[in-house]
């Protein structure tokens, strides 16, 4: 099987701080990690490879420091890694990012299956995986916790708040992965040292069949206007009378007093 895994390097959000003046993340001194949902995605991919054979290519779109995240992925079972990096990609929103990753898929493919984490813990949009599927006209199953491949089809457990569905899709497909029932594996000392010695190849805009207007700030229809920590709200007024009718009457009286109704 030819497997592609898309990962993102994100700040370790247990320590997130926002600059109150610029409204941006303070990244300096904040440790970076592989997006946790991407680690579950990679673990599922490695288990699939162990069962069905094949090769895993892992890619990440980001600056040079994302190479550390890619090497981490190599140390836990990925076979090849590429850093997708170019000034032209800077400022990309999810749509622009998904276009770039779709172009990477076409360049490095064909792939039988693409794994993404269900969302990045810094952006939290959950959009890139499904957008990739749309660009590439592939089937997609999002929010899965388990899967197997049978006769060129994937059967995946798609999680909901209320339970789960078993969904089948024709390969090639894109899946986005939520928390799996098992933790991602640790690297071994051997695999860690070997991964560190690997040179990660870079892919730039020149290597891809993509227009400059479709990526970066120019290619991003959405823009982040402000990032802020919401002010903690006060407790509010608690209305708790003996009966529902009494509580409703009290609420009405308050609303009338405040000229809201």
């Amino acid at each position, binding site marked *: 099987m030819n497997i592609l895994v898309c990962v993102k390097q994100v700040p370790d959000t247990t320590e997130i701080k926002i600059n109150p003046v610029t409204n941006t993340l303070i990244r300096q001194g904040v440790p970076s990690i592989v997006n946790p949902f991407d680690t579950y995605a990679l673990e599922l991919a490695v288990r699939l490879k162990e069962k069905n054979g094949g090769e895993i290519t892992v890619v990440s779109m980001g600056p040079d420091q994302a190479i550390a995240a890619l090497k981490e992925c190599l140390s836990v079972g990925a076979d090849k890694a590429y850093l997708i990096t170019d000034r032209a990609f800077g400022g990309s929103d999810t749509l622009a990012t998904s276009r770039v990753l779709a172009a990477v898929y076409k360049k490095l493919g064909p792939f039988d299956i693409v794994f993404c984490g269900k969302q990045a813990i810094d952006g939290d949009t959950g959009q890139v995986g499904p957008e990739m599927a749309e660009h590439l006209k592939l089937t997609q199953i999002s929010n899965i916790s388990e899967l197997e491949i049978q006769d060129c089809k994937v059967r995946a457990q798609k999680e909901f708040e209320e339970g789960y569905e078993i969904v089948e899709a024709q390969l090639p497909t894109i899946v986005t992965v939520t928390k799996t029932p098992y933790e991602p594996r*640790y*690297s*071994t*000392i*051997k695999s*860690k*040292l070997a991964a*560190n010695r690997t040179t990660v190849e870079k892919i730039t805009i020149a290597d891809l069949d993509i227009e400059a207007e479709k990526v970066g700030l120019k290619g991003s229809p959405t823009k982040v206007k402000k990032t802020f920590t919401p002010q903690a709200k006060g407790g509010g007024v608690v209305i708790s009378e003996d009966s529902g009718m009494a509580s409703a009457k009290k609420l009405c009286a308050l609303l009338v007093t405040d000229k809201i109704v």
Partner: protein
Amino acid sequence: MENYLLMNEDQKELVAMLRNILQKELAPIVEEYDEKGEYPMQAHKVLCEAGFNTVAIPEKYGGLGLDNQTIALLNEEIGKVDAGFGCSFSFSSGGIKTVLLAGTDQQKQYYADRILNGGISCTCITEAEAGSDAAAIRTTAVKDGDDYILNGTKAFISNGPIADTFTVLAITDKEKGTRGMSIFIVEKDRGVKVGKKENKMGIRMSPTSEVVFEDVRVPAANLVGAEGEGFKIFMKSLARSRPLVMAFAVGIAQQALDLSVAYAKERKTFGKPIISNQGVSFMLADMEMQIQAARNLIQYAARCVDAGVDLTSASASAKTIASEVAMKVTTDAVQIFGGYGYSKEYPVEKLMRDAKIFSIFEGTNQIQKLILGGYLSKK
């Protein structure tokens, strides 16, 4: 920021990797397992799967063959979380050390294979009447055809209750004193029994017990080196492993200091954090200096081991200094925490309990001074 600023890239990666595993697999269960006095096999297995139990086994025999300076840094990292676990984890492969020094190729591969396949080793020298005076052991190994039959009881044996492979010092010729002692590899299923388990003050995750040999028969192929060489081989091996074991003590001390600094910044007396009092900040500064000195002495001793130079001074010095630093730093840490330091609800009392053993095992500090005094007088 790391405490040791001269790590190479591999060391930084391995320390970070180990730290990550320990935070997830060991740190959350320290209090519980220290209370129970049990060795957490689950954490042991995770570290073995990552290869940490093979760091001291040469690549030729399937291990990772890391250098001793790196192993010392890794040991310190484990020591920060739980030195008892660290000691037992280290000893779980440490039984191979005398075999690596004096065994045949076949014996080395045999022992390495047992560890690589998940085996746990332990080293059996000490007896009830023979600690510092190791020459006073009474366990015998009597030749019987192509075998030896072992009889005796070893005491205070780390990993006694959990080991399956024992490296044992026994008397093969009583007339010759220390020159009549030999080393044997003894597999548990030859009839080795575990005796009384110790209920210890500290390093409680490291299981310690008597190990009993009653007519235990081992083939002559299990003799390591020649008959009569055992005492000398063990003394050489212990000098090499001492600095690495003391790295756990440095870990204890570093953890005690880190906790003390954090506490001193938060705890207020008379309207200000206690760290702003020189009485406290000077104590912390002393602790920092002592730890740096101990760590670097261990790095020096580890480097001497790798270089194959004379270890007498480096090993004895590193052992004594590191253990004394751990005791002083943890005692001061409890002092800085005040009443809370004395309570089991706070982590520093455990560090102080753990620190004490390092002046006692691996050759008491008094023995180290005996060794060094003798060495200097012959210079």
